């Protein structure tokens, strides 16, 4: 993975000192509260409901074990012994004090980490496929591109006061695990159909929030070495023309929507044509320098699928079931990419204690070339483990309370922090996730239902990505009570789709029943081995809508049964 050189090191240290000075200037009145707020946000510091919150960048979700150990240390020394992985592959601490943040930033800099641009109206932390460098369907590792953009976007003199936040995601694989179509800019690495040259498909104007939109292709093929100049042109058009009169209409997706993708493309290309590309782009040697850090680790030459692993699976059903849910096929024979579920039934999705961080860091060090990934599903990945080590890892994870066999299943729920922490939230998310997970906790039943993504947001800003959940749940307030809207058919993959609302919102305690009714429709209607989302696509929303709206009649039926 990427390592800082002297320039990166100095840059991050200077940024720490700069923030320390910004805090001091807020305290002596030089900076007004209005002026300080965006400055602290651009360094990941929010003021939440109970306390400040600090969002730490995990660039493209890649972490080394020493970095995770440092996060554990910060959790113990400055927070309450736990952290929370977000849907954009970052980590959040919920209880830091502003007075401690400069020191925390210093500890992060010690392990080549920072909080730069994890919030604010600027280019945010760049995300990428969490199976980068692992997946067999990958054309090129997206992380060198993401790292190049991370550096280029850091403290950008022109693009640090944009109309609104700007999120970029990169994928290099056939299957989109980075949700590139619901980002402000999504980059898909591809081969030119004629020349075979590597470049990018550029997708602009996707996003969730108040106005969910699927991104549109503005460039079919951008040569790889032209990336930064093209991004500069696109960002300049957005910075100049994005709406600033209404913050709900300020994202680039609204600009693209209002002027049309053809007009947007035309304006970007016009600006791009006027730029002096070679004076902006990184030279090939620099791109190579970054790419070299992401060279594959030195794998052992293994004969193929591990016999020991097969034997352990055969004799231990619980292990086999866990492995079925958690193991992703590695491109190297005999290896596996292992997803560790942070969705233990009854716990808050994405939360991890400092002890668990250390346990996972130890496993990464011992079994996975010291490397970890954070997924936008709020889980953690050990990307390169030998199949023959899986049993030992499973045992260690069981000891750490991290062996829930539910990755990709109905209880692997994405949830934002919601009103339990977040100042913007209109309703809680975590207790809804906990209640649904409890309802479906039976292992056999989860496996029978199969892949099903539930995503919960505690407000319209959609940090829980509810629009692209196979089942989406949006928490709102109605007449002074928490109220939940349910959507169906969303998809964050290459088949990106926004879910349809099934009907009026329901109370919190009605949510698990409603989800169960939807799952029952699926179980009744599905063809053999047909996943939930495919059934929804085939049969349409109607039968699900009927079942969703049937809550009162089912209650009546129950009442009648009770009388009978």
């Amino acid at each position, binding site marked *: 993975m990427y390592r800082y050189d002297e320039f990166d090191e100095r840059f991050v240290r200077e940024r720490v*000192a700069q923030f320390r000075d910004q805090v001091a200037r807020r305290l002596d009145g030089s*900076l007004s509260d209005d*002026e300080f707020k965006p400055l602290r946000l651009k360094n990941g510091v929010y003021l939440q409901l109970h306390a400040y919150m600090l969002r730490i960048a995990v660039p493209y979700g890649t972490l080394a074990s020493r970095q995770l150990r440092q996060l554990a240390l910060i959790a113990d020394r400055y927070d309450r012994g736990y952290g929370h992985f977000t849907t954009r592959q970052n980590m959040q601490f919920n209880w830091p004090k502003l007075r401690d943040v400069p020191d925390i930033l210093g500890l992060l800099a010690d392990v080549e980490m920072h909080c730069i641009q994890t919030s604010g109206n600027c280019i945010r932390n760049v995300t990428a496929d969490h199976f980068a460098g692992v997946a067999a369907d990958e054309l090129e590792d997206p992380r060198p591109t993401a790292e190049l953009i991370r550096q280029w976007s850091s*403290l*950008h*003199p022109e693009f640090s006061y*944009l109309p609104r936040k700007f999120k970029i995601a990169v994928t290099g694989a056939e299957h989109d695990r980075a949700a590139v179509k619901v980002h402000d800019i999504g980059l898909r690495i591809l081969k030119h159909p004629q020349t075979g040259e590597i470049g990018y498909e550029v997708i602009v104007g996707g996003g969730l929030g108040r106005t969910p939109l699927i991104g549109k292709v503005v460039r079919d093929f951008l040569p790889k070495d032209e990336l*930064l100049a093209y991004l500069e042109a696109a960002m300049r058009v957005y910075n100049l023309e994005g709406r600033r009169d209404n913050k709900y209409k300020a994202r680039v997706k609204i600009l693209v929507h209002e002027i049309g993708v053809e007009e947007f493309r035309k304006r970007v290309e016009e600006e791009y044509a006027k730029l002096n590309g070679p004076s*902006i782009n990184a030279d090939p*040697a620099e791109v190579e320098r970054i790419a070299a850090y992401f060279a594959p680790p030195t794998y052992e030459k293994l004969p193929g699928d591990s016999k020991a692993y097969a034997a352990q699976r055969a004799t231990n059903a619980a292990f086999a079931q866990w492995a079925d849910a958690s193991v992703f096929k590695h491109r190297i024979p005999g290896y596996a990419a292992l997803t560790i579920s942070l969705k233990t039934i009854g716990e808050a999705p994405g939360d991890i204690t400092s002890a668990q961080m250390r346990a996972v860091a130890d496993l990464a060090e011992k079994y996975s070339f010291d490397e970890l990934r954070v997924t936008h599903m709020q889980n953690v990945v050990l990307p390169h483990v030998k199949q023959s080590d899986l049993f030992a890892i499973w045992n260690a994870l069981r000891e750490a309370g991290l062996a829930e066999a539910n990755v990709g299943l109905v209880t692997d729920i994405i949830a934002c922090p919601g009103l339990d922490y977040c100042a913007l939230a209109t309703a809680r998310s975590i207790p809804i996730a906990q209640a649904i997970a409890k309802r479906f906790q039976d292992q056999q039943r989860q496996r029978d239902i199969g892949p099903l993504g539930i995503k919960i947001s505690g407000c319209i800003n959609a940090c829980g990505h509810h629009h692209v959940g196979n089942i989406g749940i949006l928490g709102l307030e109605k007449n002074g009570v928490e109220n939940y809207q349910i959507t169906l058919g969303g998809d964050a993959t290459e088949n990106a789709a926004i879910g349809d609302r099934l009907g009026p919102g329901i109370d919190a305690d009605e949510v698990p029943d409603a989800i169960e009714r939807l799952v029952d429709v699926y179980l009744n209607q599905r063809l053999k081995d047909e996943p939930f989302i495919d059934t929804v696509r085939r049969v349409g929303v109607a039968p699900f809508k009927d079942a969703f709206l049937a809550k009162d009649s089912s209650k009546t039926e129950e009442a009648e049964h009770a009388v009978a």
Partner: protein
Amino acid sequence: MPLLDRSGLKAETFARAENLSDAAGDVIVPWANVQAVLEAGAGNHRLGVDIPNNISIDEILPLVDRLDLISVPFPSFSDGRGFSLAKQLRDRGYRGVLRAQGKLITDQFAYALACGFDEVEPADEVFARQPVEQWLAALTRITNVYQRGYDGAANILDQRRAARAAKAAQVESKEASHV
């Protein structure tokens, strides 16, 4: 209002006026009047213009050779359009004075210079809290940046390239001396 550049406070030589006849010496006129002023001839006045920040630079470019100063407004520090306007004006050939005027804060000073501004005319209310020492100190915070094609702080990508070239030259000269 105060005026400062990268070396500190500087004297204001321009006066804002609707028309040239309203002032002696250097004048900044509103964008709406600049065409008429130019047609009448600027005479001995150095001419500046206040542009709106939602303008397309294509409207300004035909005039740039005849303008001594362009003042770009920042109605709020969170409105970053002025940075892009400055960068475009510089890249497309404007060589006169570029001024950022309005509610910028010290933390934006380096960005403004990097995008091609020469000077900042901060709002009185901001300058009362953020004196000139803070503006100058803000320029020393970040000494290296990642973006190529911007002014000011040393560029990291080019430094890396220079280091690579120096290393390659060293290897070459070593090889040559072995021959």
